[in-house]
């Protein structure tokens, strides 16, 4: 049980880091996809398509286990650190591709008149994004973002095969030594359920409060 709980700790840590990173990556990539500069658009589109059309597990194997074979990444980040950094980053990049599309859709959903009104009082493009478009888009993005965050937490279970210690991996260790698979995988599932349930409940609570305050 202690082993499972320490796995739980890793799962939560990984999830938090990956979720924060995925939002940052998604925001940057979404703005790049919407930019007028073709190179930015192109880079962001390639990124999104690449990560959305290959399985996460393959991405993990490729980046965490494959890259060190062709690049001296272990020297750059350290033998022990590289897998951890690479795993968190791959997860964030993968989920970030979906977040990019969520944010992009949120931004595109804002009425063109809002942007024109902002331009008509002399706002720069940046100010228009910052003060007019993003605050309105943000509200629409909450529900799909929460889904994506829950997905990210679930996807941490895929980290097991690449050897980063987290909840499912810990469970596998326990299971292979005790053979009580039903019980332990069951506990593992329940722990995942608790985390994700808590996340979506908190989010829908926040969403409701947000709407009362800010209409």
């Amino acid at each position: 049980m202690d082993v499972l709980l320490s796995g739980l700790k890793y799962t939560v840590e990984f999830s938090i880091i990956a979720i924060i990173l995925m939002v940052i990556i998604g925001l940057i990539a979404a703005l790049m996809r919407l930019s007028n500069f073709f190179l930015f658009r192109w880079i962001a589109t390639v990124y999104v398509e690449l990560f959305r059309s290959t399985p996460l597990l393959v991405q993990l194997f490729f980046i965490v286990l494959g890259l060190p074979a062709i690049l001296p990444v272990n020297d750059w980040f350290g033998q022990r650190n590289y897998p951890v950094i690479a795993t968190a980053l791959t997860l964030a990049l993968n989920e970030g591709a979906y977040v990019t599309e969520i944010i992009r859709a949120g931004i595109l959903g804002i009425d063109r008149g809002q942007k024109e009104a902002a331009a008509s009082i002399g706002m720069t493009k940046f100010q228009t994004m910052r003060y007019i478009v993003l605050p309105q888009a943000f509200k629409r993005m909450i529900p799909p973002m929460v889904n994506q965050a829950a997905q990210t937490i679930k996807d941490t279970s895929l980290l097991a095969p690449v050897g980063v210690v987290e909840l499912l991996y810990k469970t596998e260790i326990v299971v292979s030594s005790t053979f009580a698979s039903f019980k332990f995988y069951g506990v593992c599932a329940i722990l995942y359920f608790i985390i994700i349930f808590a996340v979506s409940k908190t989010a829908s609570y926040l969403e409701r409060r947000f709407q009362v305050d800010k209409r």
Partner: protein
Amino acid sequence: MINVKDLYKSFGKLEVLKGISNHIDEKEVVVVIGPSGSGKSTFLRCLNGLETATSGHIEIAGMELTHSKTKLHMLQQKVGMVFQQFNLFKHLTILENITIGPRKVLKRTKEESNALARELLKKVGLSGKEDSYPDELSGGQQQRVAIARALAMQPEVMLFDEPTSALDPEMVGEVLQVMKDLAREGMTMVVVTHEMGFAREVGDRVIFMDDGMIVEEGSPQDIFSNAQEERTKSFLAKIL
């Protein structure tokens, strides 16, 4: 104040403005009329850079609107615009709608901006609505807030694109009243509207546009009672 020379604008293959030239003086109130699709909105939107002209030359509020987009926002600070659909910022209160320009664009203090906004709200007859949100107001009230929002930037010119045509008839008067007050205070205004009463009362000049060109222009008296061009006459016959 405004100088337009050989203005052309196409959307893809569709040529919408076909060589517009005009000069508008300081404090002049110009009313633009014309059938749907004649390019009135496009003309107005070119004047404050919301659309980029295909070719031609525009000078407005002491600045040149060339084809490059640089410093466009500087020009837009001096040219106010009021839209048919109001376009108030939905997530901001009425007070914030008016203060966001002065605060974020002109970098005024909060106190200064709030005081200015309250003064403007009083002017458009909406004191007490500071903390409401746009969707709690009627169309006429929203449009008056939109005028206040534009005025908060202390523009040198105000452009109006059919400001009353999305309104219920009983709300048209209150918005026109605010615009008339503004005209009498000496604001330079270009107004696309079919409100002939407004044109007669405060308009210095009426421009009739058709098919991307200025067909005829003159004093309201000249245009409404003594139009020379066939196209003007037949258009007026339909709307009067």
